[in-house]
């Protein structure tokens, strides 16, 4: 199974390098003060969402699916390897974002480090959630169709949010609500990453079961 995880990382080597460069650029922009440091977290979510799509597309391009099933690994472990790879990518991205945050804080460009850490945890959870939704689609429909379906679903969610939030006063109303909230304590802030971590693992586990079901019954 480690071989398969390594394979995914080796295939993504160049892409990861490019993403790292983009992250450095964004961190530089955050340092200049032009954008908030949270932009790094948002970028991380987008990157981690794109990477599994790329791996599936590369695998399909070279018929790895067929070859992979001829290896002494088994379908369950093949799916597990892909999920572990995604989990590692999410953890790696969160770690990079946290390191960026520490760097910005050390240079006096981050005013609320605790809030930034919570934002990192939430972004990490969002990245896991996106992949938990996306991966079963990729296993069921393949990279081309899954990509379109996923973006369709995401578009639908945004549309739904607009339709629901619109009559309530939109984003401005949410911002107003935020102002009414009390400042969270440090203990409350610390628990957010723990809850996000547990929730992420549960979501990924459920998604894994679904993907294993799809892949287990698939004729490649």
């Amino acid at each position: 199974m480690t071989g398969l995880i390594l394979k995914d990382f080796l295939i993504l080597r160049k892409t990861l390098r490019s993403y790292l460069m983009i992250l450095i650029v964004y961190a530089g922009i955050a340092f200049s003060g032009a954008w908030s440091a949270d932009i790094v977290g948002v970028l991380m979510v987008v990157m981690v969402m794109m990477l599994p799509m790329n791996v599936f597309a590369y695998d399909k391009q070279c018929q790895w699916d067929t070859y992979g099933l001829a290896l002494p690994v088994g379908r369950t472990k093949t799916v597990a390897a892909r999920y572990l790879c995604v989990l590692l990518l999410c953890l790696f991205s969160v770690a990079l974002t946290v390191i960026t945050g520490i760097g910005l804080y050390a240079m006096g460009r981050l005013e609320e480090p605790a809030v930034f850490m919570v934002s990192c945890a939430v972004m990490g959870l969002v990245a896991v959630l996106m992949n938990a939704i996306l991966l079963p689609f990729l296993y069921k429909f393949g990279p081309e169709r899954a990509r379109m379906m996923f973006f369709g679903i995401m578009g639908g969610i945004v549309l739904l949010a607009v339709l629901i939030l619109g009559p309530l006063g939109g984003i401005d109303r949410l911002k107003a609500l935020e102002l009414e909230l009390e400042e969270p304590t440090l203990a409350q802030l610390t628990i957010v990453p723990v809850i996000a971590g547990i929730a992420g693992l549960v979501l990924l586990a459920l998604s894994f079961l679904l993907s294993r079901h799809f892949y287990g019954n698939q004729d490649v």
Partner: protein
Amino acid sequence: MTNCIEIKGLVKEYKTFTLGPVDLQVPGGTILGLIGENGAGKTTLIKSMLGITRPTAGAVTLLGTDPDHAKEDIGIVLDDCFFSEYLRIKDVETVLCRVFKTWDKGLYRDYLDKFGLSGTKNIKELSRGMRMKLSLAAALAHRPRLLLLDEATAGLDPVVREEILDEFLAFVSDEEHAILISSHITSDLEKVADYIAYLHQGKLLLCDEKDRLLESYGRLVCARAELEQVDRGYIVSTRKSQFSTEALIRHRGDFQRLYPRLTVEPVTLDELMVFIVKGEQA
């Protein structure tokens, strides 16, 4: 001599195509050549044997056990390189040495040297021939006992093909090894195969020792009137044109003793396929 491959009543049904039932045995120390036109079911058969596609019915035993347990000892080469272009040759080892318990790093490097492949090269930079050599090196480096090759020599120049065929012959010099190779290049199979299986529209039409097949069948070229005098039991199929009449004859030796004045030429695997598919069945 034990069978490395045993297939009993294998059936794979699709909406528009059915493979089988296929019964097949490949003894150790031999090469079975699988021939058939495009879409005859060769790739489906190989995939079904390995459980890549799930057979509708039938049983497959590879190396005396079920396919899932035999995979550690099976090398596979498909008609194209299945390693991503984003990998380097040495990355293939990094991945596969963690997949196969029996991966032999020294042997892999020996094959790379033998095939003139440099580990630092990107797969993207390799020609088709080089990629096939890489696939073969990867298939052989974990010391398999069974090789399953799907059009592994397709698109290669004769020199590379010859090198690869030599590797196959060296591989089956061990009595516990066997190869199943599907190919459209029947001349390759005539060189190396011990057995020939002919799939046509999902059905196994012929499966026999290659030498026996080539000895027992023959091509009769004669006048239409002469063909009409021949015992129909000898004729498998005929091809008639404005200028000539040809027939595929079975039991060539007996036929020649019975009809010494008629000329029967040896038949090639290509001709055998064409007669069966295109000829008029007797």
